[in-house]
């Protein structure tokens, strides 16, 4: 009766809002998106209005992630029919080819987009993703560097490049990318903390001191960042233990490490965490 109808409307709006939130947050929870999205498309398509097209796109990409080519194909057909000749839909078709590991065909698809629109950043990034998927890291790095010369403000690209360099153990270049990111995002604690980790990995007294500073900076920006807290403890401890440092520096770092130990132990006690850290001084 009337009650059931109300419940259905609530359920439907909840589902639609969930999908929107995941879209806005750029969440890659593909299995959930497929679950919710498939039902929405199958049961409630008529109620979605113009939202349906962006939902088809969102669900299609999620479907590719979950190897649901049947669902991806359905969404793609709907989008092709509604937006014939669209570059955006062409890119989705390319992504489907990538998911099927038809990399040459996918690349051709993106090349055709770039022929019509050489500034299409999405197509260029997809081509780089193909190189990554094929394990061609050196080429991916080269292409991404070229891309960034043209599109120097693309944060996502800088971060992707830093990840590629880390995987290649090229820590100096990874640090450079993270420096770019920190400059344009001074309040982002994650970039500080990742930079500190790279510096720590590079090793040597100078890098350790830099790493300690940036772990501390990350903590200033977010005092709940556990990686930064542990990083501060470890970098300060290592500096204090280094035979090259003078007494003043040693004393200061012993103090930093002690402070970090305190904070870590408190965090574990407060959260009643099962796994207790045994940090001795």
């Amino acid at each position, binding site marked *: 009766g009337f009650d059931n109808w109300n419940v259905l409307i609530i359920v439907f709006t909840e589902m639609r809002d969930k999908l929107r939130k995941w879209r806005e947050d750029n969440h890659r929870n593909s299995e959930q998106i497929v679950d919710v999205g498939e039902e929405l498309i199958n049961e409630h398509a008529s109620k979605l209005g113009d939202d349906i097209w962006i939902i088809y796109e969102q669900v299609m990409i999620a479907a590719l992630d979950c190897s649901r080519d049947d669902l991806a194909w359905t969404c793609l057909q709907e989008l092709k029919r509604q937006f014939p000749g669209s570059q955006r839909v062409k890119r989705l078709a390319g992504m489907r080819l990538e998911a099927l590991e038809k990399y040459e065909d996918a690349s051709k698809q993106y090349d055709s987009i770039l022929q019509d629109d050489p500034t299409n950043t999405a197509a260029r990034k997809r081509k780089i993703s193909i190189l*990554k*998927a*094929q*394990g061609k890291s050196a080429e991916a790095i080269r292409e991404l560097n070229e891309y960034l010369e043209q599109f120097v403000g693309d944060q996502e690209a800088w971060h992707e490049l830093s990840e590629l360099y*880390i*995987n290649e*153990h090229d820590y100096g270049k990874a640090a450079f990318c993270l420096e770019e990111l920190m400059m344009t995002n001074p309040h982002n604690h994650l970039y500080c903390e*990742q930079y*500190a*980790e*790279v510096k*720590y*990995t590079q*090793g040597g007294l100078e890098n350790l001191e830099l*790493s300690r500073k940036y772990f501390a900076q990350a903590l200033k920006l977010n005092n709940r960042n*556990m*990686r930064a807290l*542990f*990083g501060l403890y*470890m*970098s300060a401890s290592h500096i204090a233990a280094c035979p090259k440092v003078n007494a003043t520096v040693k004393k200061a770092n012993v103090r930093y490490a002690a402070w970090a130990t305190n904070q870590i132990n408190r*965090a*574990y006690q407060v*959260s*009643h*965490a*099962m*796994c207790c*850290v*045994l940090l001795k001084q």
Partner: protein
Amino acid sequence: MGEVELSCLAYVKMYLHACLFPRCSVNGLLLSSSPAGGAVCVTDCVPLLHTHLPLAPITQLALTQVDVWCAQTQQRIVGYYQANACVSDSSPTPCALKIADKIAEQCNNAVLLMIDGGKMSPDYRVPPIVMYERKDTRWTLKDKHTIMLRQWEETRDIASQLLDSGDHSLLVDFDSHLDDITRDWTNQKLNAKIAELASPANDNLGVCQLGNPVLR
């Protein structure tokens, strides 16, 4: 000779770790509750990272923490596992070799295990793993006949069941623990779930008993 046995518990958690983060490289430590000497019995594992595997601080931290936990629970670190994000290449990365080297310093017959992502689908009838051992100073491929997985079919089925039921999301690796320190990286909850699914005859999930070689 160097026989290695992999317990159901260790295999299932390693496998689920790889499944939980399909787009990332993941790694972890292999543990043994058996005394040193003779065959290596991998009775458990601790999933470590799914981000920035080559970076030092968190890896060092995790190694220290696991070391302490092992001392408390009469276990030893006997190996290392890794699954590469790129499924077309399951060879050990430099960072895998580095960590495995470190483990080998403390453990004579340490093993390096790579999960072969390309062979993880249900069509494959054998465990999707490749094992290496240290000969002189190099990590060399182990003879398949020296690797044993007791009751492989049951192990494989338990892993599939947990995947289907979504329970693989119960798995906590060290990275996830750092994101939320209330989450238990020793995975007691998941261990209990795995024990539930095992048959009464196989209630010694984490115990080794050299049986017939399954890997051919």
